[in-house]
Every structure is written in C-alpha cells, then in structure tokens.
C-alpha cells in the first residue's frame, strides 16, 4: 500500500470524473455493476462493451493503467476458484486440448472472471477518483444513518494514525530480534496487536473527551454543504445508463 492508509486508493488528479460529487459516482457505480451482474454470461459482446465503457472511464479519469492493474490483485482468491470450476462442475463435458472440462463450468468460470473483474475495475475508478472525505459526504447525502457516517469518518480519519502505530510497533519488535516467520514469534506479534487495541481504545476515549470539552452534544456537523446539480447527475449516470441499455438489449436479443 502506497501513501497514507487513510487515503485509500486516491490518485490525485483533476478530471471530469474527479470533479463529480461522490453521491453521483456511488449511485453510478452501483447501477453499472448491477447492469453487469444481471447480464447473462453467454452474451459475450455485452461484456466487451462494458469493458470498453470502463476503459473510457479510466482514460477520462486520467488513471495510470498500471495502478489499476496492480489493484486487480484483490480478486486473486476468486480467480483461483474460477479456474477450478471447469474441472469440478457437473453437466455435459467438452474436450479441450485433451482435458475433459465441464461445459457449464467453463461458462461459470468466465461468468465469475468477467463480472468480478468489471466490478473491481469500476470500484477502482470510484476509489481512485474520490477522496475519503468526499466519499463520506456522498454517503451522508445518500441518507446513510448519521451514527454510521460518524463511525466511518472516525475510522477513516484515524486509519493512518493506527497504521503508523502498528508500523512503529513492528519496527520496535523487529529491532529486538522478532522478525516474524517463526511460530515462536507469534507471542511477540500478538502482544503488539493486543497493545494496539488498548492504544486505539484509549485514543478513542481521549478523542471523545476532547470532543465533549469542545461542546460535542451527540450530533456531528454535516460533511456536505450542497447537493449535486441535475447536470452532474446526468453526466455521472450517462455511462451507467449506457450499461443498463446494454444489459436490457443483451437480455432481449441474446447472442
């Protein structure tokens, strides 16, 4: 993970997508992914179009392709699952290069890989163009319960603090010879994590007392000042609506 942990995957740049309000982007992402998920796996041209739309988004958002590729690694466990599917699934089998594969398994494998990858890339576009604060303001605009928004905002704000705490404890531990890797070091690492919890908890108590002494009454100030303009909604949802059109066409027309 590069940079401060609290910043997520944000790639600082100025683009049309960066400038869109977060709530528009969240809704757009959700609609897009929903369209992708509801497309039958066999309609290959639809997935090609989705991919093209996403590539256009990545270009519009001025994201370095390498960053997007690297982040795709989160998918790995399910890629493994998808690759195993053709061998274990039931149903009629086909011979590919002398290996017997399940027909539905191959399709299922493609289904998981294609939809999963499109979903991850779409989510990367959101997280790389939206800072944590803007994202929280967007969630607040979308009527997420205020307590949850407050918890989220404290988590995001203190993520880098807690990560740095952890980093310092790791350095301290390793400089005492516990370099990790052997089971005998479990106790040292676990002791550090236990201490991290106590530190985080006590920090939480201190933060709350500091807030109370500054007049906190149980209501957090609103994160966002104004909503999104209609133009912005139209602009942000354009690509998602295109995806919905593709999904509907794919259902109706089929292959």
């Amino acid at each position: 993970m590069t940079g401060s942990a609290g910043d997520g995957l944000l790639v600082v740049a100025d683009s049309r997508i960066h400038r869109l309000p977060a709530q528009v982007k969240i809704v757009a992402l959700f609609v897009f992914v929903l369209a992708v998920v509801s497309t039958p796996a066999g309609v290959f041209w639809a997935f090609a179009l989705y991919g093209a739309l996403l590539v256009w988004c990545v270009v519009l958002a001025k994201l370095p392709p390498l960053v997007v590729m690297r982040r795709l690694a989160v998918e790995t466990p399910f890629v493994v699952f998808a690759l195993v599917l053709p061998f274990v699934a039931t149903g009629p089998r086909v011979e590919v290069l002398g290996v017997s594969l399940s027909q539905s398994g191959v399709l299922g494998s493609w289904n998981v890989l294609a939809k999963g990858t499109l979903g991850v890339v779409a989510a990367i576009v959101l997280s790389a163009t939206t800072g944590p604060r803007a994202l929280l303001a967007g969630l607040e605009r979308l009527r997420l319960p205020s307590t949850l928004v407050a918890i989220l905002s404290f988590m995001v704000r203190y993520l880098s603090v807690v990560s740095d705490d952890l980093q310092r404890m790791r350095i301290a531990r390793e400089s005492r010879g516990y370099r990790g890797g052997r089971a005998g070091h479990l106790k040292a690492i676990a002791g550090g994590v236990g201490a991290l919890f106590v530190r985080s908890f006590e920090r939480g108590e201190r933060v709350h007392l500091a807030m109370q002494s500054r007049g906190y009454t149980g209501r957090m100030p609103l994160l966002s000042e104004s909503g999104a303009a209609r133009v912005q909604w139209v602009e942000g949802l354009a690509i998602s609506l295109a995806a919905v059109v593709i999904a509907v066409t794919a259902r109706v027309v089929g292959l």
Partner: protein
Amino acid sequence: MHVPDGFFDAPTSVATGLIAAGAVGFSLQRANREIRETGPALAGLTAAFVFAVQMVNFPVGAGTSGHLLGGALAAALVGPWSAVLVMSTVLLVQGLLFADGGLTALGTNITLMGLITVLVGYFVIRTVLQVLPKRVGSVVPATTLGALVSVPVAALAFTGLYAIGGAVDIPLGKLATAMVGWHILVGLGEAVITAAVLSAVVATRPDLVYAARHLQPDLVLVDADGNSSTVSPDRPIAAKPTGRTLGVGIAATLLVAGVVSLFASAHPDGLEFVGARLGFDGAAKDSAVAGSPLADYGVSGIGNAQVSGALAGIIGVLVTIAVGLTIAKVASLRSSRADKAA
C-alpha cells in the same frame, strides 16, 4: 475472502443486502445507548484497529502465515452489536475506498464476515463462559473456541448461499467439504491469533474486554471500622435502599422538618439580612407561588407560627418525597424500557 461482483446471482445479492441492512439497522439501535455514551470515535478507532490488524501477517507455523478476520475478537472486545457495526464499517471502507469486495456483493460480505462470524463467535463465547469458572481469564479460551467455530460456519453459510444463488452447478457436498475443510484450517489460525491477542489485552486492561465485564472479581470495600463487604463491579456502588432504611430515612427527615424546625431561628437568613441592611430587599420579588397555602414556610389558616412552620416542614418533606419517588419511578421505567429496547 471478499466476494466479488457477479459471484452470486442478483436475487441472492439483493436478499443478503437486505439482511445486512437490517442487521446494521438493528445493531445501530442496540448499540445506540453505548455509542451515545462512549462516542462514535471509540467505535471508529476500533474499526481502524480491525482494519489495521487484517494487514498483519501472523506466523501460524510450518512456514505459513495468516491474517485475522477478527469477527470473534471484535465481539469479545466491544460486544456483539458494536462488533457488527465495526465489521460492517471495515467492509464498507474496504469496498468503497480500496475496491476490495464488490459493491453489489457488499451485503453478502457483511452477512458472511460481519454478521455470521460475530454472532456465531459471540454465541459460542457466552455458551462456553457458562461452563468455565467465573474468572476474567476464562474469556480467552471461550473466545478462542468462538473464533475457531465462527470461520467454518461462515464458510458453510457461503456454501449455502452458493447452493441458492451460485452461477454454476457444482456438487454441493464436494464444495461444502472443500470450503469447510479449508476453513477449519483458517479457523485454527484465527483461533491461535485471537487467543494470543486477547490474552495480551486481558493481561493489561481486562476492564476493556466486553465479554469479561461480568467476570470482574468482586470489589472488597473496607469501612473505617474494618468491616469488609463485597460489591459486584457490575452493580452501581450505591445499593438500592431497602424498605427499612427508607423508612428510617423518612422518619428522620420528618423529625428534622417537623420538630427541629420548631427550634429554628426566627431571624431572617443571611442573604435576607444583608439585603435588608443594604436596602435592596424590596427588589426581591415574591415568587409566583407566594400566594400558595405553604408560602413562606407556614400553613395558612393556622394561627400558631411555630406549629404552622412545623406542619409546613412536614408537608414539604412529604411532597418532596412523593415528587422524588415519582421522578425516580418514571426515570427507572424509561431506562428499563430503554434497556429492553436497546
């Protein structure tokens, strides 16, 4: 183990989304009082802690390492409802900020990793604690077992979801065996790490462990005469007065109000005296109830000033007790209702 988009079909995703939303709403309600007391910062920092811990690789032995999911650990540390919120927060941040776990699969991920691991873990913890001796240390083996059980159960739930909404037919028995078998190993790692972390917390700040709060040893109070009594740390130290002490208290108060006030000074009190000397006593307006039957601590219609004062004192005490008891009754009703609702 974050499920990506498209892994389950749309109806399954929507259903688990509804389950997750309901669970988060319910937990918000249950944890509301606690969060209002301790502030959202505490929950937020616990979430940051869980997030950070998931990045720590622990040596599990035989050259392999694993990382913590943290459901059972969070349940033991902050209680089940806060833990559901904490885990959901972590998953939401991972999904939106780190593109980890699909957005349409967020409900599935919260249900599997935020709800099932926490609730199963907490259920096991509470059950095991019933059997183990009533000591703070017992929370460590209980939570270890909770962590061990919670992971394969979540894997089993995953298999169940796959049976309902999986895209491909694979022999379910085979899938369940593979998933549960593999996750028993993962659960073993989770159990070892959880035990080590929790025992570190128990060793330094046992009071922070939610699941061990009722296991704190009784406090021994020794008064000035050397008599010792034990008090459960759960209960507020001021014990509820019994009927007899309440009766004695009321009798004493009535005695003071009714009898001792007979001998009270008829002179004005300090402020009235100074006011009169400086000439601003006219500025002190009589209160709005000055015309009431008990105004100026006398009962109107009774000639003897001293008897009147004593009667006024007794009536005042009785009224005060009545009002006080009513307020206490209402307050305890409300708080017990809040307890039930919370």
